[in-house]
C-alpha cells in the first residue's frame, strides 16, 4: 500500500464525513435561524516542514499496514522522535497535539490485540486527520484584523495527557456587524496536571483569563481573525471592559450574529459546536425536555477545571451551551447554567475558575495536593539544564 493510496482513502473518508457535517450544520442553522458567511480560501505561508511531515506520513502508513489489532509498543514508540521534533515547531502544533493524543491512546491500549473492542470510529477519525494534515500546507494567514467589543458566551475546555485548549465562544461587535467568533489558547502539559490546575498553564493570557473569571467584556484592537472565525489571541491587543452577562449576550446579541464558515478540513460532525441559549426546559439527569422533545445532555464534556457538575445541570432552568453531534444524536454541552439549589439561585460558568477556584472546598483540595505546575517547573529548571 503506497502513501498516495492511503491519502486517497483518508480524503474519501473526510469527504464522506464532510457531507454529513454540512447536512447537520445546515439543519441546525435552519432551526436556530442562523446566518452563515461564505468560505474564502485564505492565503498561506511557505510550507517549510517537508521532512517532518514525511516522518509523520511514514508512521501513519505503518499504522495502516499493521492495523489497530497489530499495534504494539515498538510501533507506538517509533513515533517519538517525530513527535519531539513536531512539538518544537509552533506552526505544526495541530499535527503534534493530534499525534501525541493518538499515540498515548495506542500506548495505553498496548498490545491492542488483547482489547475486547477497539474504538474504531475514533481512531479512524484521528488517523484520517493526521494523514490530511501531514500532506502539508503552509501556515494560514489571517483574513483581516478586527477591532471592537468581544462579548463572551462561554469557554469550552479540551484536554488530553499533554495538551489543554481553552476555546472561548463569543460575539464580536464591530462598528457595522455582530459576528460569532472563537478564540483559543493551547498549552502543553503532562498527565499529572489535571482539574483546576490546568488554568495555571494559561497564566500567560491574563486579560483573557481575567475576563472569563470576572465575566467581563473584552475590548479588542487590531486582533488577527482567521477565515474560519478564529481570533488569534494576543493578550496585549485586548483590555477588559465592563461586566457582561453571557445569558444576556446569548439572548440579545447572539440571534443577530453572523456565524463563520467552516474551513474545509474541519468539516466533521465532531467539530460542530454551535452556541445556543436554552430556557424553559425541564432538566433530568441525562436529558432536557424542551417543547415536547428530548435533548441529551453531554455530561462527558463537563470539565473538572470548572464548577459545572451533572447535578447542577440537572437542577438548571437556563443554559448557554454548545450543540454537539456524536454517536448519531444531538446533545447539548453546557457552558453556563442558572439553577436553583436549596431554593437559592445559583449561576455557574466553565470559566469561573480561570484565575483559581472560587469554591473553598475545591481550593482546599488543590492545596492538599500542592501546585503540580510549580513542582514540575522546579524539577525542569534543576534537571533539564543540569
Amino acid at each position: 500500500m503506497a502513501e498516495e493510496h492511503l491519502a486517497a482513502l483518508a480524503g474519501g473518508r473526510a469527504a464522506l464525513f464532510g457531507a454529513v457535517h454540512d447536512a447537520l450544520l445546515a439543519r441546525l442553522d435552519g432551526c436556530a435561524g442562523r446566518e452563515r458567511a461564505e468560505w474564502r480560501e485564505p492565503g498561506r505561508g511557505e510550507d517549510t516542514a517537508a521532512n517532518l511531515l514525511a516522518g509523520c506520513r511514514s508512521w501513519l502508513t505503518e499504522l495502516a499496514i499493521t492495523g489497530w489489532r497489530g499495534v504494539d509498543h515498538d510501533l507506538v514508540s517509533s513515533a517519538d522522535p517525530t513527535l519531539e521534533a513536531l512539538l518544537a515547531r509552533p506552526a505544526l502544533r495541530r499535527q503534534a497535539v493530534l499525534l501525541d493524543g493518538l499515540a498515548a491512546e495506542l500506548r495505553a491500549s498496548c498490545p491492542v490485540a488483547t482489547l475486547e473492542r477497539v474504538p474504531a470510529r475514533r481512531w479512524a477519525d484521528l488517523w484520517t486527520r493526521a494523514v490530511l494534515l501531514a500532506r502539508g500546507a503552509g501556515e494560514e494567514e489571517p483574513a483581516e484584523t478586527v477591532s471592537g467589543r468581544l462579548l463572551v458566551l462561554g469557554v469550552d475546555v479540551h484536554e488530553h495527557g499533554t495538551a489543554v485548549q481553552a476555546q472561548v465562544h463569543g460575539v464580536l461587535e464591530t462598528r457595522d456587524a455582530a459576528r460569532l467568533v472563537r478564540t483559543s489558547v493551547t498549552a502543553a502539559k503532562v498527565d499529572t496536571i489535571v482539574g483546576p490546575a490546568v488554568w495555571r498553564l494559561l497564566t500567560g493570557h491574563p486579560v483573557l483569563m481575567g475576563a472569563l473569571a470576572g465575566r467581563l467584556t473584552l475590548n479588542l484592537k487590531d486582533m488577527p481573525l482567521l477565515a474560519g472565525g478564529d481570533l488569534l489571541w494576543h493578550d496585549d491587543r485586548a483590555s477588559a471592559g465592563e461586566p457582561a452577562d453571557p445569558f444576556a449576550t446569548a439572548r440579545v446579541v447572539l440571534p443577530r450574529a453572523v456565524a463563520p464558515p467552516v474551513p474545509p478540513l474541519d468539516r466533521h460532525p465532531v467539530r460542530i459546536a454551535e452556541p445556543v441559549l436554552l430556557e424553559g426546559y425541564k432538566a433530568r439527569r441525562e436529558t432536557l425536555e424542551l417543547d415536547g422533545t428530548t435533548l441529551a445532555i453531554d455530561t462527558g464534556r463537563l470539565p473538572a477545571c470548572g464548577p459545572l457538575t451533572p447535578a447542577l445541570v440537572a437542577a438548571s432552568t437556563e443554559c448557554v451551551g454548545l450543540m454537539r453531534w456524536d454517536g448519531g444524536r444531538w446533545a447539548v454541552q453546557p457552558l453556563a447554567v442558572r439553577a436553583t439549589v436549596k431554593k437559592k439561585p445559583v449561576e455557574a460558568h466553565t470559566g469561573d475558575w480561570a484565575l483559581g477556584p472560587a469554591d473553598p472546598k475545591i481550593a482546599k483540595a488543590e492545596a492538599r495536593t500542592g501546585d503540580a505546575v510549580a513542582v514540575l517547573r522546579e524539577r525542569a529548571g534543576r534537571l533539564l539544564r543540569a
Partner: protein
Amino acid sequence: MIDGADDGDVDGDALERRSAVRVVPPARPRKLAKVPFVELADGRLQGVVSSGSDLRRVYVSSFTAGTHDFSCSTNNNRPCGGLYGRPCKHLVALANEAVVQYGLERVARYLRVEVGEGDTLVSRLQGQAEQATAAAVFSRFLRHLAYLEVPDAVAPVPEMHWFPASGAAV
C-alpha cells in the same frame, strides 16, 4: 484500558461508533513533590523519586510486570543504598503514588498481580532485585518535563474537539 465511564452508558457499541469517546482515563491528582514521575510503560511500572537530601539527585525506580523484579538507582546509575533484597523506600513511594495516580486496579492489572483486600500493592510485589538501566527512564522523565517548556499556541487546534475535558465531580 478503555474507560467507558465518561457518560455512564458507553457500552461497547458506543465505543466503536462514537468519535469523542474517552480511551485513556485521566490521571487522578496527587502530590508530585516526592515522586514527580510515574508511568506504566515498557512492561514496567517505572518512575522517578526525588532524593530527600540532595535537590539535584533523583532515583529511578521500577517494577517489572509479571516477574515483579525491581530496581532502583540514581540517575547516574549508582545503585541505591537502600536496596537489600526487598524494595527500598523509593520503590515503596513509587508503588503508592502509582496507585493514587492510576487506581489500584489498573496498576495491578498492568503488573499482573493479585492484591487482596487489606493488602498494599507493594506487599504483593515479591520479586528479586534486578539490574535495569536508569538512563532510558530518566530521559523519558526529562522529555516529560520538556512539555512544560513548549510555548503556548494561539492558533486554534480543531483536533482537540476529539478530546473533551471531562471529569466534573458528580
